């Protein structure tokens, strides 16, 4: 086969380039075909399906036959009494989550970094990743077990003066339990990247700091933290970019009518209205609103990330 990198690409006309490209790489395109087909069917066809958001969609009539209603579905959502509650819950769960689940893996990584005993460090790390492999269903099951009327968490809460019964069915406790269990499950996993960033900090900097008389704490403050600052900033920006994207899987498993007040987020509402109540057009509109806001935020976050750090996700 001929060389795959002709140098005179710029000068040859497009048609000729196309021909040669296909002649050289037809096998490549053959390999790409199943992948393209897969994404066309399972990613792009649904994207096309968002037109349902502008219709009074009926399964029998299909996407081409249903009545077009313009922005009525969106108007209905913005006017809905649930709109503010959903927006508030989504943002609060996200923000509180960020507040706890962002700094703690960093602190965990820093603590591990201070441990000198290699074997102990390794064991702690290994155990800390373990919960990541446990399924959401199991995590929520355990949560229900601890949060039931005489469960562990309820008992502890009662000891501190709580008198509302089972915490799992109390809307006041939902966010705490949701974020706390997320933290339990993902702390170790999320710390991996910081641990690897810590390993790249130049050891001579520590030596220099020691000579200058810096203690452990001072070293952490002036050498370690600045060393992993770029990683922290990039990850923080990326996390901020996902602020509207609270997933539904765990919420759906955890919530119930008694906790909707704080637990219901946009994505779980889409599931309830769209799949359970079969209100297809409307729920697609709600979802589209969420996706578009998400995409815009993500693009902004990526733009900032690029400016700040010359690192971007694409």
């Amino acid at each position, binding site marked *: *086969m001929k060389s795959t990198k002709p140098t005179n690409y710029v000068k040859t006309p497009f048609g000729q380039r196309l021909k040669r490209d296909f002649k050289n*790489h037809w096998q490549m395109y053959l390999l790409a075909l199943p992948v393209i087909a897969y*994404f066309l069917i399972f*990613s792009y066809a649904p994207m096309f399906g968002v037109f349902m958001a502008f219709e009074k969609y009926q399964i029998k009539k299909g996407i081409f036959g249903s009545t077009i209603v313009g922005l009525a579905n969106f108007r209905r959502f913005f006017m809905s009494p649930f709109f503010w509650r959903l927006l508030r819950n989504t943002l609060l769960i996200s923000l509180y989550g960020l507040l706890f689940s962002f700094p703690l893996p960093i602190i965990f990584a820093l603590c591990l970094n201070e441990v000198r005993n290699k074997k102990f460090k390794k064991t702690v790390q290994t155990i800390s990743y373990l919960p990541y492999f446990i399924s959401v269903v199991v995590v929520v099951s355990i949560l229900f077990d601890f949060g039931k009327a005489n469960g562990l968490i309820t008992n502890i809460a009662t000891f501190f003066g709580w008198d509302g019964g089972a915490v799992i069915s109390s809307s006041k406790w939902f966010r705490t339990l949701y974020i706390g269990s997320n933290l339990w499950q993902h702390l170790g996993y999320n710390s*991996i990247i910081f641990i690897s960033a810590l390993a790249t900090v130049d050891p001579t900097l520590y030596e220099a700091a020691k000579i200058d008389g810096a203690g452990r704490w001072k070293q952490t403050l002036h050498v370690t933290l600045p060393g992993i600052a770029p990683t922290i900033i990039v990850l923080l920006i990326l996390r901020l970019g996902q602020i509207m994207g609270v997933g539904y899987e765990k919420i759906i498993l955890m919530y119930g009518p008694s906790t909707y007040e704080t637990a219901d987020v946009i994505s779980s509402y*889409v599931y309830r209205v769209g799949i359970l109540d079969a209100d297809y057009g409307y729920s697609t509109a709600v*979802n589209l609103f969420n996706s578009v806001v998400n995409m815009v935020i993500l693009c902004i976050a990526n733009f900032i990330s690029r400016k700040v750090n010359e690192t971007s996700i694409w």
Partner: protein
Amino acid sequence: MLCIIFFLPVWHVAMGSISDPLKVASTSGLYLKPLGKATLGGYKLIMQNSTILRAYGNTIIYVVASTALGLFLNILAAYVMSTKGLLFGKPFALFIVFTMIFSGGLVPTFMVVNKLGLMDTRWALIIPGALSAYNIIIMRTSFAGVPGEMLDAAKIDGASEIKVLTKIILPVSKSIIAVIVLFYAVQHWNAWFNAALYLQKARNLYPLQLTLREIVLQSTENSIIADADGQDVMIFRPLIKYATIMISTIPMMALYPFVQKYFVTGVMIGSVKG
């Protein structure tokens, strides 16, 4: 101290699963050791329970089939993406990355699966969700690290592009393949939502996680374990709950120490480029 916190909930369930059922029902708080006389009664009941066993089998089918399909497509996509000098290389990459940024959402995806006639069949759990753009990117990064001279040399020797993939790239990429298999397998083993979505009538196709959800979270134990002897089952109810959690978690736990090394590598590649 932290280790204890990570481990405690799992321990609690493990101990609960072998405790005296009557004591479990009346005791609150954490189980640090089996209550009363240790028993395997819960596990015995599970082993006799056709619903749970069938769900277990279903899960294994889904994990194997879906991981195999996903890995195959993943390798193709990553190979094409990592090849330099393709006229349509960039559009192809964009085509894939865009699926990470924007999706049609729950209902339109549901409609597509519905229209394809996959509802209430095993295929609904095997095909949708088999391929993830994120894993493609991870593998692409790794494939791109294979030295270009090696590939060029092979091509000069007359190897076709498919040969280059199977004879050169795949043999040197064993560890990244292990990582990707691990990611897909864990994801499919723990998945329940697509099953809840696409298997509305076919209860006999339920994977383990969805059966677990019904047993533990929706308290429909009676219907699930109705085929066993009534009185016994009522007493053992809490044990069945814990024991099912255990049998659904143990395979991943058992697998984990062996794949730990790969797992960390994979997460790192993913976070650098993700």
